[in-house]
């Protein structure tokens, strides 16, 4: 990353008649950045991408790409390429012609074009598919053709609308790796829309989390995980237990809180939250909680409870523990070491946490 801004969205707003699809979207993406837009279905991710690509005019606001105002610049003259959520494979062309569609204006010779097409198809693991007709492809193959068709253009900005959603886990992981490697080696900007938080976390430099047409938080994956700006973001990324807490004191940069069920804790102040108040909400990640039969030592807080549910997930085992004074059962996840489920429903257990793992989510009235 060189620190120059590649994409700037300033006060973007999009209305469909009375429906507000995007509201006050402000975002600056650095050159070479891998950015992901994450959010539930219908929150406006595709709309935002289409505004950058030039298929939609924003109702208000400015789009700049590489410092240039894009107002009135049609999609075919923007330095962007898009991988469509619906793939948009040309049904009258074969795979090679689909991938080579945009190269006809490139001034490349026939042989150079052929080489570029082959290279792009190799990147998406579709070597030798040039002559295959578009109708004769599986969903995942169509998605990869769409990806190759955009990659072959070597644009400054690649816009990806759920580019890997139709692939099986194994292929998806290898494509994630391949895309990331490609993005780093050629240094182009990626803006990727995804439903999949793990995909966003593993691939992105930064993630924007959207709800109802608004950006709730823009941060690096670790910051987003450690300091979500509110309960909604926290719930969308990873698992999270929400516990009511009371603010007792505010030493410099920290908060002293009384957490329901767990008692007094000294936790880090989350700079990202909107507001603090006497009544707070704090979050505890299931994997950061300790669970044991006997009272554990060496933790900042502990509580005794009853197991109400146990679920085997393969890599992890989840326990739901009911604790007096906590409104909902607390979820604890522990790594699966020996394929055993150590506690069963009705068992009395201790759960324990360190203050450093408890997340301040701000005033309860905001959450």
């Amino acid at each position, binding site marked *: 990353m060189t620190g120059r801004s590649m994409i700037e969205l300033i006060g973007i707003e999009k209305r469909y008649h009375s429906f507000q699809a995007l509201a006050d979207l402000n975002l600056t993406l650095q050159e070479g950045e891998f950015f992901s837009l994450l959010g539930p279905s219908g929150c406006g991710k595709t709309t935002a991408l289409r505004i950058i690509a030039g298929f939609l005019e924003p109702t208000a606001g400015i789009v700049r790409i590489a410092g240039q105002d894009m107002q009135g610049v049609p999609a075919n003259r923007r330095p962007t390429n898009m991988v*469509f959520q*619906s793939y*948009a494979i040309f049904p009258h062309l074969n795979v090679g012609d689909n991938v080579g569609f945009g190269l006809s204006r490139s001034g490349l010779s026939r042989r150079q074009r052929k080489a570029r097409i082959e290279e792009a198809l190799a990147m998406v693991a579709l070597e030798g598919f040039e002559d295959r007709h578009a109708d004769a492809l599986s969903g995942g193959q169509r998605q990869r053709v769409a990806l190759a068709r955009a990659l072959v253009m070597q644009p400054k900005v690649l816009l990806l609308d759920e580019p890997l959603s139709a692939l099986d886990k194994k292929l998806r992981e290898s494509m994630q790796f391949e895309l990331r490697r490609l993005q780093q080696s050629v240094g182009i900007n990626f803006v990727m829309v995804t439903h999949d938080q793990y995909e966003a976390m593993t691939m992105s430099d930064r993630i924007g989390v959207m709800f109802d047409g608004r950006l709730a938080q823009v941060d690096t994956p670790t910051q987003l995980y450690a300091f979500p700006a509110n309960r909604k973001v926290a719930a969308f990324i990873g698992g999270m237990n929400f516990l009511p807490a009371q603010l007792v004191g505010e030493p410099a940069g920290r908060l002293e809180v009384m957490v329901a069920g767990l008692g007094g804790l000294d936790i880090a102040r989350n700079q990202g939250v909107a507001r603090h108040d006497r009544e707070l909400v704090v979050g505890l990640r299931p994997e950061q909680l300790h669970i044991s039969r006997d009272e554990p030592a060496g933790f900042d807080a502990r509580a005794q409870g009853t197991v109400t549910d146990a679920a085997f997930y393969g890599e992890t085992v989840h326990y739901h523990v009911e604790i007096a004074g906590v409104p909902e059962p607390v979820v604890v996840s522990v790594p699966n070491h020996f394929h055993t489920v150590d506690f069963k429903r009705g068992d009395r257990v201790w759960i324990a946490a360190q203050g450093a793992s408890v997340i301040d989510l701000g005033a309860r009235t905001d959450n």
Partner: protein
Amino acid sequence: MSDNNRTGVLLALPATAYVGLLVAAPLGVLVLYSFWTQTYIDIDRSFTWENYRTAFSDPLVRHLLIRSIWMAGLVTFVTVALAYPIAYFVAFRTRNKTFWLLLITIPFWISYLLRVFAWRVILGFNGLINSTLMSAGLIDEPLDFLLYNEFAVIMTLAHAWAPFAILPIYVSLQRIDRSLLEAASDLGAGRVECFLRVTLPLTIPGIIASSLIIFIPTVGDYVTPALVGGSDGKMVANLIQVYFGAANNWPLGATLSLMSMAAVGMVAVAFVVLLRSAGKAIR
């Protein structure tokens, strides 16, 4: 035969009987007649190739057949060329498509004959166009090239066939996934290139359908040429009509009918093949 198969046959029976009675049987009669001979008021039912020999060697037949195909081709070309932009407009540029489609079908609400007569009124010597141009002072005497020639036939038929041409093209345009056009423009194609490389190839089935729907009946049309075509607008169907009517030579009429059917069939197949490969070449 399984139960399912038997049901299928039973279901297809009415349609098969209908088609057999109204298409296959008359066609068979036509074929039979073409091998017989007319002897004044009687028919000589002995087998002969004589009708075909006559038809092939008659320069008038050849002339009319070629002209019919040429005229039908022109009518088809003009109609489809005019229909495409209208279909495009309705499919891509309008909101209330039902309203526009209704407008397009308005010519159907008037009888075919009335429409042809209306064109006579419009194009005639003292017709709408001439009187308007005269009273506007643009011409001193009526234009006489408007009616009773090929031009009049083409105008009249292009108007009559318009909905038949517009609707199939409209359907094929309507079926195009809009994201394909976005993808093309995303890949750098301007409006014209989008049209030539995506829209047009994807509507070739519609163009073929429209063209065949117009071309085939036009070759055999005799009302329009008879009413507005004058002497040099006559087509092969007019001759066939004469043989079945005034000339009272059914066998020769039948032969001519079969010959024009065969010619139309061949031209139509050639046309489809040509357009298909043109579609492939566009890429």
